[in-house]
């Protein structure tokens, strides 16, 4: 319990540091965000007055304390670009990202772990060589290229899936059924999901394979084998469970890394998620949106790490904090 409290305090401190760095970084970048709401024809006095309303006339430290105060009140400000509350913009897009990435991450994890386990068990065989070659090939593919290739083949050539987007508008109009909407969403989900799984499963697969190879050489595996347990039980219950720890770590880290992939994937498949919005907000000097996005990502990574630590204790009874 004490450990958990310590970790939580550390998480909050880390978040504060990230928040400070992010805030400073955006202010140091060249470019004035007031480009969004002032006109060259305005007088200098008018421009100064409008900048003051957006708080851009304040010294940096004052802007920072104002910002911290607002965050503590749950107010992340208004997006300069979308002209809406930042939380509203992020909220709807984050949900879209979760719809795509949560199942995609889980499937790629399950596929990777399953195949890694299988490869280690059947080490040295043709299937291992084929899987390593296939996995590494997809692992090294450039996501936008693979995505566009999939769109070209599956959507354009065979017309199986939509080119992009999350829904077909005419299937969501009043009068459409819930089932119809769900199926339409699923229809749009398949291509980006498969693209994600293809590019991410290999990482989990190779870590699991290597970890399994170490585990199956351990004495206790020999012992359980001597006890006469079935191969399936030895593999799944004794070898795989001990080998899975590094994959759990990799999974939490992959959440952070997959944000980079999510930007590319969302752009290629026109998925209205947080990744694309985040990149646009940085390019457009949309400080409030960019800062909130970074804080969100930092929070996700920190929380994922925290969960990993807790999971460790659950998966390996020897680990106690």
């Amino acid at each position: 319990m004490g450990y958990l409290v310590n970790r939580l305090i550390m998480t909050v401190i880390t978040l504060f540091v990230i928040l400070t760095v992010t805030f400073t970084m955006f202010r140091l970048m060249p470019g004035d965000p007031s480009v969004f709401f002032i006109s060259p024809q305005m007088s200098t006095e008018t421009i100064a007055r409008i900048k003051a309303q957006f708080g851009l006339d304040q010294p940096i430290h004052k802007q920072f304390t104002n910002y911290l105060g607002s965050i503590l009140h749950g107010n992340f400000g208004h997006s300069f670009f979308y002209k809406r509350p930042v939380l509203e913009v992020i909220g709807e897009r984050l949900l879209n990202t979760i719809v795509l990435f949560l199942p995609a991450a889980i499937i790629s994890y399950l596929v990777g772990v399953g195949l890694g386990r299988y490869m280690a068990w059947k080490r040295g065989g043709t299937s291992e060589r084929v899987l390593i070659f296939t996995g590494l090939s997809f692992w090294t593919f450039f996501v936008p290229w693979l995505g566009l290739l999939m769109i070209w083949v599956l959507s354009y050539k065979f017309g199986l899936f939509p080119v992009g987007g999350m829904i077909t508008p005419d299937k969501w109009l009043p009068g459409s059924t819930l089932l119809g909407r769900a199926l339409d969403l699923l229809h749009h989900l398949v291509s980006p999901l498969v693209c994600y799984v293809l590019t991410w499963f290999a990482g989990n697969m190779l870590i699991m394979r290597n970890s399994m190879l170490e585990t199956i050489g351990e004495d206790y595996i020999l012992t359980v084998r001597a006890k006469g347990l079935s191969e399936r039980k030895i593999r799944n219950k004794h070898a795989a469970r001990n080998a899975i720890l590094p994959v759990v770590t990799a999974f939490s880290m992959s959440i952070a890394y997959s944000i980079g992939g999510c930007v590319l994937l969302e752009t290629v498949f026109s998925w209205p998620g947080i990744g694309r919005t985040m990149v646009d907000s940085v390019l457009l000097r949309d400080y409030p949106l960019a800062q909130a996005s970074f804080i969100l990502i930092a929070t996700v990574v920190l929380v994922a790490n925290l969960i990993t630590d807790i999971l460790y204790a659950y998966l390996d009874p020897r680990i106690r904090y």
Partner: protein
Amino acid sequence: MEMKKMRTIVIVTMLLCFGMVTALVIPSSAMAKESTVKIGLVMEPQTLNPLSAESEQNWHIIKMIYCGGYIDPRGLYAYTPKSLEWIPYMAESMPQWLDDKTVVVKLKKGIKWHDGSEFTAEDVKFTLDFFGEFEAANYYNTIDMLEKVEVVDPYTIKFHVKEKTTLLYYRTFMTLILQKAKWSKIVTEARKNEAPQKYIFNYVIKNPVGTGPFKFVEEKQGQYILLEKNDDWFLKGQTISTGDGGSVTYGPFVDRILFKFYGNLSSAVLALKGGEIDTIWHGLDAAFIPELKKVKHLTVSTKPYYHDVKFAGFNLREKPLSDKMFRKALAYAIDKDFLIKRLLQGYGTASDAIENPGLEFWYNGNVENYFRGKSEASRYSKAISILKEAGYTWDKEPKIEGSRVIPGVGIKMSDGKKVRTIEIITRTQATNPQEAQSAILISQWWKKLGVDTKTNLVAFPTLINNVWWENKFDVIVFGNIIEPYPVHLQYYFDVKEIYQYGWNVMAYKEDRYQKAMYDWLKVFDWDEARKGAFRLQEILADDLPHIPLFVLKNIHAYNHTRFKGWIEQYNGVVNKDSLSCIRPVK
């Protein structure tokens, strides 16, 4: 267990297939039975609030709701679809000047807002007063010529102006009009707020009410916006002359417009080829043309020109760029033919003036052009002789040997001081490849004259900051927006626009131009205005505050098997007139 796993895999696969097939066969609701034009946009709109909308894509949608039809009509007057003459839009007739400071405009009767209420002079007065009170950035220039707006009766407005100038027509009289009933509540709330401009700027319009040909139905953030036809549109069923001998009849004849947003142009093009959308309201790259031309259901239009002229603009505040002869020499070094043939693959036209060659009425093609019909050797030879005459020297003088140019090194000004490194600033390759690549090529061409140059490719806000906000630049490669009426001849070159944030970023203040320009602003006769615009272009071509480079051809593609009656205009075939006039093929 192995069987169990197999079973699971089979079930998941079947579910996926089921999902896919079912989604395909589920009958679409209303939209499938009605005619819906599906338009791909590459950038999602920011807002439906016309006070803070900026991007072009955003305005495509807003204009269909608020105005539609004609070129750039947002208010009382507009331009004819092809000849681009002033024409009454929501006004009944052309303005009547009572004296040099008072003008009366009569409104059409029977114009309805989308909620069924009537459009009146009160809406016009409210809008202009509102822009004045809140100093709305997008509309600031629409009210700075006004003293007062007076409602004479529900269909008559009297404008008291500072002076009689054509600026009033293309600024105030063409500005977007807001509905008083809807906006007065917002204004009342804004007045109570401690940051009123911020309140207005960030106000979220969820159900915009306009007078245009299409009404707002629904928006799904980041995904689509749906509009439906307005059967009460005041231009519905009217046939008007396009000004070039033709005519158009306004609908709308389609039931709905669906704006669908794509994350990138390549995906949108695949959607267009596959029939998922009917067109893309975005200029396409020339590289897409061959593949689009192979698609049977698509027509590719490349004739009209886009409305911005790319240029290399000089900061005239310091030597040597303040020296006209130095600028002329640099102009001779630019190979516009190369830019058109290689960079734009032929899908562009060299521009000799700060005007769009596609706008034939206003474009003066007879100004000094510095490149046409001249070989590289002859251009550089001319440039070197100009520099020598102006007193420039080199550590190593550039030379012409046959058809080759032997680059010079270390150019010096007439006072012996070395010419410092000239920085060419422009947007990044990803944001605008034509501008970025032009800047790089120009830099190389100028180096041959012994001018040390470097290019600085930056994000757009940085460009705005360095050039417009701080005036810290040497040369900018950028695109000037060209209006249907050549208003840009005023705002980019007016000495009154030289200040921090001003439009005349080059600080051009040649007296002869200023005098000619102010005389021209008082000319209301169309032919006389044309002569004046030609004269202004001649002066600019001689003074060269910036070197016009080229205009891109506007490449559009649309599905001709679903809708017919598309109208080609100077800004491309996908435009507000087209969407107000097209009809379903079947």
